[in-house]
């Protein structure tokens, strides 16, 4: 059995925020795939606010340059969503790899971000799409960059009375985009490392390159310096070798030389080369 708790199941965001501001040790419940596992291991809360009936934070909507992703969208819903597939393919692909079919039907992207596992598949794609998170409480709404929201592995800036309601991303239509991950087995596995990319090229030159590498550094990271240096550079062997070398140096600078790097570094190198060559 789970530890004892009382739950409320509000139908509207306003009701949910009112409950959160009035209850002391209340925990937000969405897909349950992380929270109930933690509760089985002994974490307990006096109150659970089940937000899954709030319809307006379940919707994915296209606003031209940006896309609003309701935090309650499940990984499955994102993986098959047409807007996401057209303008943020790496995110659709990454969400299609999360856990198993049942986990993808249950787990939500908002829950995934609040849990803030450094190996979460959605993180690298969200970073290349310059994701912001929207946090709402009874006192108001704030928006922050995803990179600032996640403070450390499993630690975010969310406050006790807040709900992460939306994630806003920039669409990248027309980019060559994708997500690759390396795992111990083909499915139902946690990423050992992952890369999301979106690349725009013209006439043999890189126009815009966005890369994010997951599970090599404490937080998935974007090698922005290298991205900038690739702008208007000829797409040739030498450019690619130099860029990949600089990214590897940056990873080692951030993480130090980890034991796993004997394996990971050559793999990241080969993946990045493939990706940049396209």
């Amino acid at each position: 059995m789970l530890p004892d708790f009382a739950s409320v199941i509000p139908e509207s965001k306003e009701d949910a925020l009112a409950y959160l501001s009035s209850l002391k040790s209340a925990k937000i419940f969405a897909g349950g795939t992380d929270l109930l596992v933690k509760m089985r291991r002994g974490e307990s809360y006096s109150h659970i606010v089940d937000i899954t009936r709030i319809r307006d934070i379940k919707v994915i909507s296209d606003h031209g340059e940006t896309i609003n992703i309701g935090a309650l969208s499940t990984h499955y819903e994102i993986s098959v969503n047409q807007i996401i597939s057209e303008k943020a393919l790496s995110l659709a692909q990454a969400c299609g790899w999360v856990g198993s079919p049942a986990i993808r039907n249950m787990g939500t992207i908002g829950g995934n971000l609040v849990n803030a596992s450094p190996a979460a598949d959605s993180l690298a794609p969200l970073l290349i799409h310059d994701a912001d998170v929207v946090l709402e409480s009874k006192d108001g709404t704030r928006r922050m960059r995803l990179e600032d929201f996640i403070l450390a592995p499993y630690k975010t800036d969310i406050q006790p009375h807040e709900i992460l309601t939306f994630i806003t991303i920039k669409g990248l239509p027309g980019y060559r985009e994708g997500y690759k991950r390396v795992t111990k087995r083909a499915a139902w596995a946690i990423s050992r490392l992952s890369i999301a990319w979106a690349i725009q090229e013209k006439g043999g030159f890189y126009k815009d390159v966005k890369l994010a590498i997951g599970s090599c550094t404490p937080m998935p990271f974007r090698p922005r310096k290298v991205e900038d240096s690739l702008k208007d550079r000829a797409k040739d062997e030498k450019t690619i070798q130099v860029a990949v070398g600089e990214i590897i140096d940056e990873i080692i600078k951030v993480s130090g030389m980890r034991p796993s790097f004997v394996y990971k570094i050559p793999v990241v190198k080969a993946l990045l080369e493939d990706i940049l060559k396209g």
Partner: protein
Amino acid sequence: MKKIDFTLNGKQTILDVEDNETLLHALREKLDIKSVKEGCSIGECGACTVLIDNEPHYSCLTLASKVSGHDVKTVEFLGDENLLHPLQEAFITYGAVQCGYCTPGMLLAAYSLLLKNEHPTDTDIKEAISGNLCRCTGYIQIVEAIRNAAGLCKCNS
């Protein structure tokens, strides 16, 4: 305590559940549906799989209070000992059942796939059952059974 009103295997069902009660517990202990198994209890093995609105969910990580207004199916929906579903017949024919513990969940994952995809490839089948672990058969027989049942049943009619 919450009163839930949902459809279980085609029948409207009204039930009182505790706030902290899982769907797995409610099905087994209050509705006597023992086909839904408790395995790992942390959403990894798939023995507790049920279909909610025809999609596989782990009932061990689903609060019973969440299914109000939804459609829940367990393996009892597929058939009974007098009239088995073609998927169940195929599991017998191809030796896809040994200890049987994973079988209800495996059948539901397969049924959910066939509702969406009448002619799945082996890759589609493996993907669909990737969240259901079987420690006896090695999966080959299960994939064969599902592949052969696919031609025989019109699941979505």
